[in-house]
């Protein structure tokens, strides 16, 4: 099943979702990108170059880890993790970013821009820009800049300019808008490195393609280490790039159930969460370059969203996944902040593994389901990133007293401004 064979439909559409909704001024830019991307995708040497780069720079292939302790404790399915956290920069975001970096080089552009919410994608992009020698500017909602200073610190130290976006909710979606504004101004020398499988075509296809390296590796690894394909696969879904990256490896394996795990935040109810499909608060719309499900009101204006995981805290979702959901190929579930922090604690204590809060959404849902499955069943979770970079967020989520004390002392040590 080739999700990206548009022969029988419209290019860039997955069912009725997707498309290229961009100002006319970007038409030639996006056409050039489509063309270069198509050439790259048809060129086996490009994929080889990509794989080699990821091996040498980022440590691919990432392994699959059997969580024997957790499986035993739950008494159900055998749980495995795909370890995207072991990538350079600590998450799967680098796969997409390095791939786009190679494309930028082919297009002869010299400057990249990117949006970032949690900061992982911005961090990865700053890294890529340093490595490729591109100028770079990262747009980040002012609210996110304030709460994710560690990532900002690293981006700046790698030579990126980080711009705090003060429009709208001052979070991810606003940073995307700001990127589009930069792009319509500087498209001649600038490529917009979109961070997830969203936005206008060809981004969903392109990001999915680079992220498919996850699923390609994982399928063979599961056969090797579990001796069978997994019965269920769990991945968190923000924009949807790590999920589609993993799922692609198992598209033709009809018996493998694919589960997307969204941010349930405080639970159902508009404004409380960022679950586009698992809850019933979203509807189809067109924004940020694509047609898909959005958390929006009746006027088509976007709602506030909430999640403990900044990287899942987004209004829209990958159109490919929406299509697969409608076809009942992918099941969507949401887990709440509370369930997520519990899953995080369990993972740390039983396996010595610290998932990113985003990834912990996959853990939380898998834990719920594993208990009801048989010991012969096999579960695979995508560990999209590591949590140790999110120490501020995790310490806050766990309301850690010692941590707060440490910060107070540090502030005192620094003295007043």
């Amino acid at each position, binding site marked *: 099943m080739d999700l990206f064979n548009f022969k029988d439909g419209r290019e860039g559409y997955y069912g009725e979702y997707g498309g290229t909704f961009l100002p006319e001024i*970007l038409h030639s830019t996006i056409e050039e990108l489509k063309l270069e991307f198509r050439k790259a995708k048809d060129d086996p040497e490009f994929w080889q170059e990509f794989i080699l780069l990821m091996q040498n720079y980022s440590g691919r292939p990432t392994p699959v880890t059997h969580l024997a302790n957790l499986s035993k404790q739950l008494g159900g399915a055998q749980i495995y993790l795909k370890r995207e956290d072991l990538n350079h920069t600590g998450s799967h975001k680098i796969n997409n970013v390095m791939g786009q970096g190679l494309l930028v080089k082919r297009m002869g552009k010299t400057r990249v821009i990117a949006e970032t919410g949690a900061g992982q994608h911005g961090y990865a992009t700053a890294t890529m820009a340093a490595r490729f020698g591109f100028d770079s500017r990262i747009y980040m909602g002012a609210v996110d800049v304030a709460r994710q200073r560690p990532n900002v610190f690293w981006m700046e130290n790698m030579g990126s300019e980080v711009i705090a976006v003060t429009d709208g909710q001052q979070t991810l979606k606003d940073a995307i808008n700001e990127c589009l504004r930069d792009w319509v101004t500087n498209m001649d020398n600038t490529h917009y490195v979109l961070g997830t499988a969203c936005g206008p075509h060809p981004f969903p296809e392109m990001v999915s393609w680079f992220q498919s390296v996850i699923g390609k590796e994982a399928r063979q690894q599961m056969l090797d280490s579990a001796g069978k394909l997994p019965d269920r696969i769990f991945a968190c879904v923000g924009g949807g790039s790590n999920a589609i990256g993993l799922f692609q490896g198992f598209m033709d394996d009809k018996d493998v159930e694919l589960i997307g795990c969204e941010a349930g935040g405080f639970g159902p109810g508009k404004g409380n969460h960022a679950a586009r499909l698992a809850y019933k608060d979203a509807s189809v719309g067109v924004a940020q370059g694509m*047609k898909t499900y959005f958390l929006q009101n009746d006027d088509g204006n976007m709602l506030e969203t909430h999640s403990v995981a900044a990287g899942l805290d987004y209004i829209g979702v990958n159109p490919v996944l929406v299509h697969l959901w409608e076809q009942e190929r992918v099941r969507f579930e949401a887990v709440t902040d509370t369930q997520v922090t519990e899953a995080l604690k369990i993972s740390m204590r039983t396996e010595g593994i610290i998932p990113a809060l985003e990834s912990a959404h996959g853990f939380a849902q898998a834990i719920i389901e594993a208990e009801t499955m048989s010991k012969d069943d096999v579960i695979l979770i995508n560990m999209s990133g590591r949590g140790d970079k999110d120490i501020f967020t995790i310490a806050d989520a766990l309301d850690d007293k010692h941590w707060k004390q440490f910060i107070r002392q540090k502030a005192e040590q620094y003295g007043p401004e």
Partner: protein
Amino acid sequence: MALNEYLNERLELKKSGKKPALVMTHVVCGYPSFEENWQELEVMQEFGVDLVELQFPFSEPSADGPLFVKANQQAIENGVHVDDCFEFMQRVTQHFDFKVIMMGYYNTVFKTGHRAFLQRLKDAGGYGFILPDLPIDEAGELHSIATELDLAPIVLMTPTNSDERLAHLAKNADGFIYAVARKGVTGSNTTMDQEVAGFIARCKQATDLPIAVGFGVSTSADIHFIGEHAEIAVIGTAALKAWESGKAPELRAFFAQLEA
């Protein structure tokens, strides 16, 4: 179509030398408030503006510059809904002489439904619509309903378009062409130079429709420059800036210098 006829009429003023160019202005519905919008429009009417874009506020105004972004956001926070915008448009079209074009983002249309939205636009007295994030390649159905309802789907031409693309855009356009004088978002100044003139000439090669030129128009010289090469000068951010700095008197002063 209605807009074409209206523009042909108004263009007589230009041909006869009474006006250097037709003028289209811009108002964000409900920002700062509908009351102030009304006062702005009164000034615009006073100065014989030919067309007004009424922007329906959207939460993700990605083609707008900082001033309009703020205006969109504030309007939504003020509680402005699509219903309010249509109601306002109705009052405006009934009271003023200029013609009104809906401006906004595609999701506002999409969410209401193509036919429902255009019907409401028609009913409110609108003459057409500009949706900067809806490329013609995605606009097929909407444009054909527009034709049915005698509404003009305003198409944007840009300096980055090839001649082939301009021709293709022209085929899908009606009413007038919105020629974006430069890269970037609304609100920054454009130097009206030979490059712009060359771009307008390329647009003219592609279409016989009148051509409106934005963005960044703010001086009488801009208007004359546009009048030499095209038909309609689009005044956006500059007018809002004037309003914000001193309400009606400042806006009046702004238009006065434009006429100089």
